[in-house]
């Protein structure tokens, strides 16, 4: 590995560490019941099913995005 590779990869590792926490952990505020089965979170907000993979979100550029935890009616 060149020094440049190490620096680049170190940034990637830092990114993975940040994302692991910010996307998956921390306080979760929900307006409805969270069901968690076999490590898959299903969060039902009325009839909507959560989509919050960052990749999915980047594909939705330009479309209005609803946040995962929403306003109570």
């Amino acid at each position, binding site marked *: 590995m060149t020094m440049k590779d190490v620096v680049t*990869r170190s940034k*990637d590792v830092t990114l993975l560490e940040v994302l692991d926490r910010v996307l*998956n952990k921390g306080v979760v505020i929900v307006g409805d019941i969270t069901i968690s089965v076999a490590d898959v979170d299903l969060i039902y907000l009325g009839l909507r099913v959560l989509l919050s993979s960052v990749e999915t979100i980047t594909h939705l550029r330009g479309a209005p995005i609803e946040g995962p935890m929403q306003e109570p009616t």
Partner: protein
Amino acid sequence: MHKRIETDSPGVFIEELKKIDDTLPKRIDANPQNVEKGLAKLVLTLIELIRRLLERQAMRRVESGSLTDEEVERIGETLMKLEDKMQELKGIFGLKDEELNLSLGPLGDLM
């Protein structure tokens, strides 16, 4: 970003973490065509989990020597049938082994 990582082998860790594919949250795809498949995946994952636990339980009993010859034979045949059934179900829904992501924590990956 603040510097807060220390490792000699960042490349190795990236490889491993990518393999796990755990850093992005798993969600059911809301695309209507995929909802069915998503639900099938969920149900089959549960069944596969139970099947594996049954198999592990059977192994423990075999190990303990508390089973008779006939019991071993019967359990073996039952487990075989269960597995065949799982393959059939996976085939019907077009799901591959890797798609049923069973990470059982302390039990590791029984696959």
